[in-house]
């Protein structure tokens, strides 16, 4: 008798529990899908507006699907300002800063991971310390420094700093990765006659390629969107990056140009979307690492 009860009870429990769980799961899905719609809808709105005729962009009620699809906004919007030039500048800045960050940070991180000196731990503390340093304090003296060098209104102030260490966080991240590689590998290479640079460049860098990719995708995303640095250093139209150039449209909401604004905005966002879909796992890894820091 007794055993019977014992067996019966859990099965009953299990059934009602799984019902509750299915219900919970259904609610979770509904909420997540609603949220996802909220997150994605602005983009759909951007795409939709970008393909609309001006007469259709400004109507009530708004329509998600344009009656007539037009590419005119992309063509006209692109010519509204010298966006080809801005794109080119943005590509130059993004590529060069990213190369700088990847090579400079890995070079320095290799030094921290593999060699010791009397002050190496103090120096590493300084690396961590600069992560907490406020940018706004450095902004003004750095500007004056670049102005004395005659670098204002050139792309140099945007690019050159990344070759000096490539960012404290990147050094920290890559040092952690170098540390996971056994030193025996270095020693074996050394016996084979490799010098320290060859060990770094030919043996260790290929091993930490995923970490380098993380640094690279984060750097590309940051510099592609960076607004404040170009705003401070660039004055003339021909040196603008996309983030600055888009500002030409700033006051165009009311002046029947919003469809052009959305078209050009869409074009500038697409490279980031492609980057994200290619490098998704590296982004996720980068965020996980940035969380680890805390």
């Amino acid at each position: 008798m007794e055993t019977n009860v014992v067996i019966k009870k859990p099965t009953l429990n299990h059934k009602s529990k799984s019902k509750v769980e299915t219900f919970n799961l259904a609610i979770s899905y509904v909420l997540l899908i609603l949220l996802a719609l909220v997150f994605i809808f602005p983009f759909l709105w951007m795409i939709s507006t970008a393909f609309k005729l001006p007469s259709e962009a400004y109507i009530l009620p708004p329509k998600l699907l344009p009656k007539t699809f037009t590419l005119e906004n992309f063509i006209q919007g692109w010519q509204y300002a010298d966006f080809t030039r801005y794109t080119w500048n943005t590509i130059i800045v993004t590529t060069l800063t990213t190369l700088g960050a990847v090579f400079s940070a890995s070079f320095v991180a290799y030094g921290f991971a593999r060699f010791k000196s009397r002050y190496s731990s103090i120096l590493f503390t300084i690396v961590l310390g600069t992560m907490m340093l406020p940018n706004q304090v450095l902004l003004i003296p750095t500007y004056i420094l670049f102005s004395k060098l005659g670098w204002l209104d050139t792309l140099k102030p945007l690019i050159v700093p990344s070759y000096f260490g490539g960012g404290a966080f990147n050094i920290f991240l890559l040092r952690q990765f170098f540390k996971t590689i056994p030193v025996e590998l270095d020693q074996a290479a050394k016996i084979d006659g490799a010098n320290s640079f060859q060990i770094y460049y030919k043996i260790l860098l290929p091993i930490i390629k995923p970490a380098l990719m993380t640094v690279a995708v984060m750097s590309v995303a940051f510099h592609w969107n960076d607004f404040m640095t170009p705003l401070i250093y660039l004055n003339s139209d021909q040196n603008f990056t996309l983030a600055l150039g888009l500002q030409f449209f700033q006051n165009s909401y009311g002046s029947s140009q919003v469809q052009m604004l959305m078209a050009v905005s869409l074009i500038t966002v697409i490279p980031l979307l492609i980057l994200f879909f290619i490098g998704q796992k590296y982004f996720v890894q980068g965020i996980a690492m940035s969380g680890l820091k805390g």
Partner: protein
Amino acid sequence: MKKKFNLSMKSESKLFYLYTSPFILGFLIFTLYPVIYSIILIFTDADMTGTGQFVGLANIKKAFAQDPLFYKSLKNTLYFVVVSVPLSLIVSFLVALLLNNKKIKGMGIFRTTFYIPYITAGVAVTLLWGWIFNAQYGLINYFLSFFGITGPNWLSDSNWAMPAIIIMGLWTIGNTIIITLAGLQDIPEQLYESAAIDGASRLKMTTHITLPLATPTLFFNLVMGIIGGFQVFMQPFVLTEGGPNYATYTYMMHIYNNAFKYGEMGYASTLAWILFILILIITLIVNRTSKYWVYYEN
């Protein structure tokens, strides 16, 4: 033998400095020198070229006694931080909670959807939000009209411009969501299993296991949120230029204007240091409170 050892120590030290030299140089040129320079600037009336007269404490006095925009921008920035940081913490925790369920399929799609606004957050999507907040043709007011609500003029209404910027900021919390989710996924499965054996309900597990064990992640997000929030700049600069009537004029914009519009490098440096000290004090206070609410394993 000993001599040889010393020699290799020496060469190792040389290699250390060789490889870390880019950082050392960068630190001296782009960190240490600017920090010292900007402290000196506090006591001068330096212009764009960085030269000026010694003025004592005049800049500090000016900020606290003669500059109404100092208080106005500080108040706006505090408003932004106090509303947007807790809101984004709560929302991202709730979303992460929903995502932290092994039975949810299409996890990657959801994660991507929430993360994309963060990745693309820049001038382009800020301008997109300007269009969404458009009083006449904007999506938000159209949506509100379904409920019989006539939406405000958002960006051109001094009461609604800052809330609009905060709402837009909530849209880019993908980063915080993913950090929180990573924190939740680190919670050992056994804890839930043993709680289930004890007959704990789902809600109870959330409040007694998930929430306490997520506090280190929440703390990290809180501190990063505060630091970032005090430096809010691009969104109001692009959307409203600080207006209407200075309603969205943030502290960072005040620094920017003084430095790069009026060329008051001395005063702008003073403002920058005041902001830094303010962020530092608030972070320290938050850190002090952490022992009352943040769970640490050891």
